[in-house]
């Protein structure tokens, strides 16, 4: 394992993040604050409590997940797409590194950035609502797993994309709807039975439910199912990455 190379990639990617730290943080913090104002204050004043939790607090895990998933994907997909686009990928390909090491560097950095932003949002939410996190360790573990698995997913998109439109396509067309319909701002139990059944096919439901369980001890689906879902998603992404590595798909001609 070429740890020096992994560290070099990681540090280089993080430097890009810190160079534009204001930009990187302002936008998620601002949009989170807006969500709190609109959903928490305006709508929340009409919804008393959801499953025993105040509505303002109830949406915090969903908001964090929403941001962390989109950030994980966009950071990782952009991180590997950019070298392809400007041509600096030649250096990665000619370096004595394995594909696994490249993945670890890029996905590690993208997951760190997403984690960082997730924690910032958590801190922001303390300014808006009273939060009492029941299971902080599980919360952190869930957050970390989500960051890593969505960064992996983003990495695959970045390898696949051959133009900027494609880079935006999957997050926009697939991920955002799944996240919004995944119970970020409501409990699945609030839906009519038919939609409840349909929601069970949405993988994001399991992630948000598990994450919310770590916060409040309430869940849409059993926590074990949530854990299984995220493990499955992560292994699917790992499998895809392994296949890309074996075939050199879209990287080495």
């Amino acid at each position: 394992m070429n740890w020096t190379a992994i560290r070099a990639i990681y540090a280089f990617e993080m430097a890009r993040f810190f160079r534009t730290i204001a930009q990187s943080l302002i936008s998620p913090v601002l949009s989170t604050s807006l969500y709190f104002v609109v959903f928490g204050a305006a709508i929340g004043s009409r919804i008393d409590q959801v499953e025993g939790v105040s509505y303002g607090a109830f949406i915090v895990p969903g908001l964090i997940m929403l941001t962390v998933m989109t950030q994980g994907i966009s950071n990782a997909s952009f991180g590997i797409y950019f070298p392809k686009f400007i041509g600096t990928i030649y250096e990665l390909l000619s370096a004595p590194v394995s594909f696994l090491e490249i993945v670890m560097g890029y996905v590690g950095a993208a997951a760190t950035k997403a984690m960082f932003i997730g924690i910032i949002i958590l801190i922001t939410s303390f300014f808006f609502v009273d939060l009492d996190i029941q299971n902080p360790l599980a919360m952190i573990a869930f957050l970390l797993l989500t960051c890593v698995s969505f960064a992996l997913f983003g990495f695959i998109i970045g390898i696949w994309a051959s133009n900027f439109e494609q880079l935006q396509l999957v997050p926009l067309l697939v991920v955002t709807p799944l996240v919004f319909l995944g119970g970020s701002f409501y409990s699945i139990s609030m839906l009519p039975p038919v939609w409840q059944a349909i929601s069970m096919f949405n993988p994001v439901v399991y992630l948000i439910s598990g994450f919310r369980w770590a916060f409040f001890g309430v869940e849409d689906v059993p926590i074990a199912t949530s854990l299984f879902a995220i493990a499955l998603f992560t292994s699917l992404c790992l499998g895809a990455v392994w296949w890309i590595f074996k075939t050199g798909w879209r990287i080495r001609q």
Partner: protein
Amino acid sequence: MATILSIQNLRKAYASGFEALKGVNLDIEEGEIIALLGPNGAGKTTLISTVCGITMPTSGTVTVAGFDILNNYRQARSLIGLVPQEIALEPFEKVINTVRFSRGLFGKGRKDSAVEDILKRLSLWDKRDNQIRELSGGMKRRVLIAKALAHEPRVLFLDEPTAGVDVELRKDMWGIVEQLRADGVTTILTTHYIEEAEAIADRVGVISKGEILLVEDKDTLMARMGKKQLDVQLTTQLDAVPDVLATYDLILGDGGWTLIYSYDVNAERTGITKLLTDVQASGLQLRDVVTRQSSLEDIFVSLVHQPEETG
């Protein structure tokens, strides 16, 4: 000297089916500078990309200091530095950071003195804290070289290092390559400029349509360049060089209508007078006498623009 890079029967067909390398064989000695000359699309970049791991070979083997580029890619690649043909750099990154990154990526620990040395050598030290986008084209090219040298490679590939570079900087580049040779670095460069090959290479290879047509010591080539040719055109067609003229090493050309005599312009006696006297004595009638100087350019052009007989 030991062979540092060995390319055997290397073939590369792109996904489109196009065969860009058609069985290339090339052995490169440690410490030499070899120039690969070839027209656009000859396969120079493909050859370099395949050796460096950017594209996968279709068949054939390549070893670097004995390490196979596929099975022992870590050892092989850590010995190689690559300066690509196209400038590709992170526009917003600082010069020194990109060079440090390259060093780390190739598995070498951080060593500021080494990076400083390389940047100074390439006259980039004053620009170390500038963003890449603030540099001129020539400076960017030097940043690429600095990145390629950051991990102290033993073999350096320069893919058209002087394309679009002014005379001054071109001389600079040649100086850099000379200096690297003093450190024992083997350099393989591609170029369209014959004078560039003449100026810095020990050996010259000519590549066209995916095949190496010739690899020769530059001095041998230069010696050939110092030669002149005398074409003695005749009024009668010959089947063979007449016995009386056997001592001149003549070649029968133009389907028997011309006797070709090669001589060294620098020699005290060129032997032309004697030859012409003997030709006349043998009873042959002269139609015309032409002299030609063959240059590396001629050799190159005649190799590359051969009629397509091998389909």
